């Protein structure tokens, strides 16, 4: 079975770097690995020294037994893929793509990646091609959206909801009057017409109708994703850096994920941690250190005391401190080393 490894945390803590490092380490262990980022940033490709291609999946490295692939989440590509998978005729696909609402959906909207990523993940999970899929999630708040998006999508495409929207938007509502509609729908419709004008609603409805054949499939895969997530097999890595604000949020976030029904193992990674020996020996070197460095190291020291205390009673199976590494020229060797440290810190006895 494919094992999913999620890297979660606030922005800028090094989720992408650690995802890349971890994926490289799994490759070193002769696994077939796919790595992907839901964040629109280009960092992952930069780290793995690979050019973004128009392909869906590019191979970073391969050997006899092992494979390291990267999946590109590209709105245009992914839409195309999904349409082709679920719609039988080219004409229908063209019709959707030429619709005014579609070009809006495709180009300008935030959050579309979430839905698409989930569709793709389910597909890849079924194919069983990979031993591991490493997922670099969006920053904290957005990743909650990410995990909920399967549920929301399933809800949206539920038969009941679809009928509801159809009634609100249908042309007959505008043409035939509203006597046959329930009061609730009639109200919503009037309000939206007043707010946006009738044209938009008609257009949205047309577009919904075009998408209708997809509904059943999308709903099924959204439900499937929820099932996958509720299995105990997967790993969740919560990444944070030496900041007070993150400490509290990481614990709350972890709790939140459990409430969302995630069952896998949870680990905590304190990334770019100041080495223990350096903040222990600050007093011995007081004269040599500049006053700023002295002050900073003292602040770091009290942070670690606070961190150790507050992480003790948490539900993390392991807490690993990863020492600082220079970000500049982070080449493959250094990444592999970082991946090895992460892996060993978590899984060694």
């Amino acid at each position, binding site marked *: 079975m494919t094992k999913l490894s999620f890297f979660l945390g606030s922005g*800028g803590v090094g989720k992408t770097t650690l995802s890349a490092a971890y994926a490289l380490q799994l490759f070193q262990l002769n696994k077939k690995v796919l790595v992907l980022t839901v964040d629109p940033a280009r960092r992952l490709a*930069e780290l793995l020294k690979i050019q973004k291609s128009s392909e869906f999946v590019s191979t970073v490295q391969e050997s006899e037994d092992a494979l390291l692939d990267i999946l590109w989440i590209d709105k245009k590509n992914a839409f195309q893929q999904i349409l082709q998978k679920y719609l039988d005729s080219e004409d229908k696909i063209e019709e959707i793509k030429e619709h005014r609402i579609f070009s809006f959906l495709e180009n300008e909207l935030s959050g579309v990646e979430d839905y698409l990523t989930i569709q793709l993940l389910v597909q890849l999970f079924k194919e069983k091609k990979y031993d591991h899929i490493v997922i670099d999630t*969006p920053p904290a708040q957005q990743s909650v959206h990410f995990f909920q998006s399967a549920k929301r999508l399933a809800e949206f495409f539920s038969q009941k909801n679809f009928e509801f929207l159809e009634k609100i938007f249908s042309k007959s509502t505008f043409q035939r009057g509203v006597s046959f509609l329930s*009061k*609730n729908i009639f109200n919503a419709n009037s*309000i939206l017409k007043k707010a946006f004008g009738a044209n938009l609603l008609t257009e949205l409805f047309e577009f919904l109708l075009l998408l209708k054949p997809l509904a059943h499939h999308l709903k099924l895969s959204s439900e499937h994703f929820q099932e996958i997530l509720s299995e105990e097999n997967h790993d969740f890595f919560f990444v944070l850096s030496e900041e007070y604000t993150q400490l509290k949020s990481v614990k709350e976030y972890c709790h939140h994920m459990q409430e969302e029904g995630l069952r896998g193992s949870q680990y905590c990674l304190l990334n770019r941690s100041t080495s223990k020996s350096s903040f222990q020996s600050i007093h011995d070197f007081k004269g040599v250190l500049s006053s*700023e460095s002295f002050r900073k190291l003292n602040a770091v020291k009290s942070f670690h005391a606070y961190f150790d205390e507050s992480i003790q009673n948490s539900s993390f199976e392991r807490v690993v401190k990863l020492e600082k590494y*220079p970000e500049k020229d982070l080449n493959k060797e250094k990444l592999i080393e970082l991946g090895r440290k992460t892996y060993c810190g978590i899984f060694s006895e």
Partner: protein
Amino acid sequence: MSKILFFTGKGGVGKSLFSASQALQFASQGKRVLWVDFENSGVSTELFQRDLLKNTPEKFNGLSLISLGGRESFYEYLETVLGVDDESQKSFLSSIKLKSVDTLKKIKSLQSFIDLCPGLKSIMLIGKIIKEQQRQKNAWDYICVDAPATGHFLDHLKSFLNSQKLFTSESLSKKITAYRKVLENPESCEFQLVTLPYDFVLHETQLLSRELTSLGFSQQHLILNKSPMNRIVQKDQTLPACFQVENLINQQQQESCSEFKAFFESFLSLKKMVDFGPMNLFSLTKLMENEL
């Protein structure tokens, strides 16, 4: 005129801390300040030890805090659309047999529309901020917005700018044109880009800056957080190995900063914040007051 300050940048650079710290400083100078959590990220719990209700302002140390939600901002928009005066609002509501705007909020099908309609949230959130900027009575001097990270913020801005094409309603379309002018005017809106002295963060800031300019927002300021210290630990063989990594990172950061010098100078202003280790809002604000 009141001024909107959007704090943005790559994730984890300190947007929230700086937006809040700047707001506190303005407030201590006697200015009327509104601090905005752009999309109810809940960051106020960490910053101010306050859980904010959506779209409900709260007082804190001389400033007002607000956390915005998509739905709530939409309802506020509706109230203005439904009628300029109470009379026309009532007549519309009674024509669809609703008693008040509150009953309207309970309509489930309307709620699902707001959640699902593409781009609607971006327009409502940005619209709400501009509405605050245009308040006549009890106007704010400054509105400090803790905006989302680079890509997400750009998506919101683009959705907002493009929404004119989507929403054919005349009144909404006109409004968006007017709002755009507010965002483009350096007198009424500024973009504060927060960054860190790492190559890849600086690169992303460069891209962000270019994109903002191409969208018509060139009034940008730069805040370099965790700026390397001037008197760094000198590379000294007598120091133990544990300090060497720290030192190497410091030197690399200084190199990066000098490589990006021209980029730094392209901003209207540059603020440098020295790295003094883990911080909270109050230690940062105190530090900034001392620095200035």
